[in-house]
């Protein structure tokens, strides 16, 4: 039976950097050949499940597990009474407290839904059934359900996020036109298709962990530190990931529980989080609120921006969702002041979710800019262009590249913005009000050192080997394209091995930094391997190319030859055979020359060596402008997005097809954020009551309109070795305000708190 027609790969240029090569591992995924973490066929598995707190704050006094232990198939029950002997692992920055014990099942209850016990049994069903027999006694203490709770207070100022220049308050007071608004976003969740979970197995003091990971090396480090074993003893395997969106960058408590259980039982253990546990075992995007005041002249020149923001965090860690992240850099403003607070509440510590910081920040400033435009009676596009930032006023540095003006003007052109009528409620189609809105977005270019290995094999195939991961964003594909280009061979002559902490180190797939970081290393290693081959081919006496007299060789069309047709041409395998070589293997990294082993380890397993967007000469960012059209049924308050045009400046695109699909994915998530997504918290016990996919709504295909994406970027060699900037995060940034602005244009109603559900419009 033929499952599908062989795919056509477009023209030959697809196999080079910048070509539209289809997804390298696509066939494996759609035919079920890609093995995900919970699918590894490991013999003799035991199954672990988690038991979670049903109170928001307090202490576990006792856990009565007697009945559970007697239930059929039960092997073990873990509770806060078990000292697992683990130690706290390093934080993101690689800092680690000395000898501090780590309790993945803590006695102290900090939020409703926290894991406090685990049951391990011969089958998952037996474990689940036994868990219901466990009786937990708590000592409950007062809780803070959310930052809207009166008991929450104002929280604490994050000094490192305070920023300002000029005299914002005074300039605001003097400004003839002023607007002020408070904007808020609720708790939002990753809802990756593949839930979290792992399979884990010990062999002596060696551990293998099959777990979806955005960072195989960073997570391997956590396991080694928890269990006090050498880093080399941990192998974390994660070749395919069903979406992460920021949630799979760190090892989590359930991983420690499964690994401990496995060691104690002497058996491999599988632990799969249920879908509801994917809402409580790790944090989504924190709820935020921000007050923005803008002062401007009567002709719309910004005079001052004053921003005061806050986000929820947990009672046990500070995670700021930085509401002032985009505010200082989108527009030219001489007087600026921003401050951000975190407010501890009884919830799981929030985490990074697509476009962290920039995303809620853009919702605030981009809504406020349109409010100002309407106050001035000015076209919101004109207002944005009028206040175009010629450089980064926050760092004082020039932009590496910034084509936001082109994004705005070319996006407007493609959208047909000039046909807009300015007045709210002035565009209509039957029962439906039509509105248009703009939202700009940005995300910084960050990078980390990475390492890659290239192997040229005797059979002429080229292997790219890296511990970097691919969660669908396209790492396999662009690494194959890079190697194919360097060696002048078709993409299908390249093999790519990823997602294993034993392989060369790489940056986290987060903050849109992986492609820029790992491509640099792969390109360097591939070029070095090619140089080595050229050296051998020109000097080795067995080489047929030796006598050409050339001082270099060309690699193209799958053949290697001297320039200008002097002498023979050979394929890679013919040349390797002639040289009598089975393999040429080259390892290169992008650390400074002479980095020690210790520095290398630190580079792959912590964020300590990450280069921020303004650490060099330039201020480096990706930019975008979204144009949204909505149709609002005024009687029902229902909003449907009917059209989106988005123009992006992400520098050079390594593979436009995959980039476009990342942008579209971000835009679709933005539609969800604008209209549907909201964790609903029961204030009485701090529980999120819609933590499942039936009740926490994300867009369906029917909610996704035609999306046109446009690239206006130019190669930015200040930002990365190959000229690209980040593409994954920026797509969502600015979508929600574009939709909220369109809703205002349609209805005359300004919704400042997301999501824009129907009751807010009727």
């Amino acid at each position, binding site marked *: 039976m033929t499952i599908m027609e062989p795919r056509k790969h477009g023209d030959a240029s697809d196999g080079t950097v910048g070509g539209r090569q289809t997804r390298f591992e696509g066939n494996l995924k759609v035919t079920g050949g890609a093995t995900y973490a919970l699918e590894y066929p490991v013999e003799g598995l035991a199954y672990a499940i988690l038991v979670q707190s049903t109170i928001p704050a307090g202490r576990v006094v006792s856990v009565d597990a007697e009945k559970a232990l007697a239930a059929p198939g039960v092997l073990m029950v873990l509770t806060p009474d078990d000292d697992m002997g683990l130690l706290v692992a390093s934080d993101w920055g690689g800092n680690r407290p000395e000898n501090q014990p780590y309790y993945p099942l803590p006695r102290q209850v900090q939020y409703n839904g926290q894991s406090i016990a685990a049951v391990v049994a011969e089958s998952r069903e037996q474990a689940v059934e036994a868990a219901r027999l466990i009786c937990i006694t708590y000592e409950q203490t007062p809780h803070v359900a959310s930052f809207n709770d009166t008991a929450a207070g104002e929280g604490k100022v994050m000094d490192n996020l305070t920023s300002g220049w000029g005299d914002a308050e005074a300039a605001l007071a003097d400004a003839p036109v002023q607007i002020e608004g408070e904007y808020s976003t609720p708790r939002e969740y990753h809802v990756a298709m593949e839930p979290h979970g792992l399979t884990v197995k010990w062999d002596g003091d060696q551990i293998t962990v099959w777990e979806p990971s955005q960072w195989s090396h960073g997570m391997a480090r956590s396991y080694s530190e928890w269990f006090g074993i050498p880093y080399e003893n941990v192998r974390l395997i994660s070749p395919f990931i069903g979406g992460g969106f920021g949630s799979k960058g760190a090892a989590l408590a359930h991983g420690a529980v499964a690994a401990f259980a496995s060691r104690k039982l002497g058996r491999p253990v599988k632990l799969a989080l249920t879908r509801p546990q994917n809402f409580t075992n790790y944090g989504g995007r924190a709820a935020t609120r921000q007050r923005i005041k803008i002062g401007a002249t009567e002709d719309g020149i910004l005079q001052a921006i004053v921003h005061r923001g806050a986000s929820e965090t947990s009672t046990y860690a500070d995670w700021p969702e930085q509401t002032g992240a985009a505010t200082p850099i989108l527009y030219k403003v001489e007087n600026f002041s921003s401050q951000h607070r975190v407010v501890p509440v009884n919830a799981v510590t929030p985490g990074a979710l697509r476009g962290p910081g920039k995303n809620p920040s853009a919702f605030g400033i981009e809504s406020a800019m349109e409010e100002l435009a309407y106050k001035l009676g000015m076209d919101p596009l004109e207002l944005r262009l009028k206040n175009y930032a010629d450089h980064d006023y926050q760092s004082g540095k020039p932009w590496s590249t910034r084509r936001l003006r082109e994004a705005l003007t070319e996006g407007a052109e493609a959208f047909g913005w000039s046909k807009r009528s300015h007045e709210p409620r002035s565009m209509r189609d039957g*029962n439906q009000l039509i509105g248009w809105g703009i939202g700009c977005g940005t995300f910084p270019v960050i990078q980390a050192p990475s390492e890659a290995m290239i192997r040229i094999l005797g059979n002429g195939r080229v292997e790219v080997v890296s511990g970097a991961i691919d969660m669908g964003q396209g790492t396999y594909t662009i690494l194959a394209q890079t190697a194919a280009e360097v060696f002048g061979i078709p993409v299908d002559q390249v093999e790519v091995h990823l997602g294993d902490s034993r392989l060369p180190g790489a940056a986290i797939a987060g903050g849109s930094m992986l492609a820029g970081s790992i491509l640099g290393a792969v390109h360097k290693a591939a070029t070095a391997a090619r140089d080595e081959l050229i050296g051998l081919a020109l000097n080795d006496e067995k080489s047929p190319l030796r006598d050409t007299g050339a001082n270099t060789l060309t690699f193209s069309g799958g053949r290697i030859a001297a320039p200008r047709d002097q002498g023979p041409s050979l394929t890679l395998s013919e040349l390797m055979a002639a040289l009598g070589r089975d393999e040429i293997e080259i390892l290169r990294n992008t650390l400074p020359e002479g980095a020690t082993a210790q520095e290398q380890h630190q580079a792959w397993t912590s964020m300590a060596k990450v280069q921020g967007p303004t650490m060099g000469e330039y201020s480096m960012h990706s930019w975008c402008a979204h144009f949204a059209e909505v149709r609002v049924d005024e009687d029902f308050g229902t909003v449907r997005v009917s059209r989106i045009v988005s123009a992006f400046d992400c520098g050079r695109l390594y593979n436009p097809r995959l980039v476009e699909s990342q942008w579209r994915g971000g835009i679709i998530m933005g539609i969800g954020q604008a209209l549907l997504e909201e964790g609903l918290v029961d204030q009485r016990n701090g529980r999120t009551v819609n933590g499942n996919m039936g009740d926490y709504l994300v867009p369906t295909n*029917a909610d996704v309109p035609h999306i046109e994406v446009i690239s206006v970027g130019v190669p930015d060699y200040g930002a990365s070795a190959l000229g690209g900037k980040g593409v994954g995060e920026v797509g969502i940034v600015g979508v929600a305000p574009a939709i909220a602005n369109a809703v205002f244009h349609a209805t005359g109603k300004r919704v400042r708190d997301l999501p824009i559900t129907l009751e807010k419009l009727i």
Partner: protein
Amino acid sequence: MRDFSYYRASSADEARHAALQSGAMLLAGGTTLLDLAKCGVMEPETVVDITHLPGLGRITVDAGGATIGALAKMGEVADHAGIRAAFPAVSESLSLAASAQLRNMATIGGNLLQRTRCSYFREPDVFPACHKRNPGSGCSALGGVTRNHAVLGTSDTCIASYPGDLAVALVAFDAVVELGGRTISVDDFFLTPGNTPERETVLERGEMITAITVPASAAAKNSTYLKVRDRQSYEFAAASAAVGLEFEADGRTVRDIRVALGGVATKPWRARNVEQALTGKVLSPETVEVASRLAMEGAVSHGANHYKIELAPRVVARAILKVGGLV
């Protein structure tokens, strides 16, 4: 999920007999039963699989009306040409429900008996208080997150809404549930919670739905199902209306009108007061708007579901205007 035994019934009598045992539950498409078993809400000791019973999946439509076998799939009924012609509201209520995958699994009998989406009902470990699950234990929804709860037909003990779509269309057109031994109108089949929210229908242990019959009528032929929700697809109704209309010969005076509401009440809700207010009247946007507001007579909100009182009459009005040819 607790272990249960599985029993495949080969005749209707055998199924009824098996269902008499304590802890036995009928299994049709399983999309409600297994879901709630995994949530720890339904705890069958035996599931009695009725999907292999012969003859129960038949759909017939003739001049008198439609007979839909209990095992007919949601998707089959939605797509049935005879149903679409004679009962557009019934077909639409199904095609707007759930997802394609669910509609291919789920049966009409099971669909009527789907349970509420009240979050508190669905999470026993965290919210032990729920009169519907455990009579006398309390109601966690009161004072909680109530955006999807009912505003009509509620009681002090329970405010859970009936989430289904099909039953709303059925109740508008006087459909009848066939229980083998007896028949009962869909309207009487469902109960409001009163003091016994655990009793949602008149179905007795050991009884089985065998079919649903819907009498043909001019109003049913000129009908629609309008479902309003935040998400375009795959979401339960924030408010919905099934409406059918027959004019007098003048083409503007109402001879027969049927109105039922979904997403807002504790059972599929027939709005007879709206029907009475419009019968014999000339249909106009003004009369429709005024009459539609009657649908909310006696409505009580609990916090976040207040919007339904405003929304539902608008949905009713739009649906009436649509079948009246006025929008």
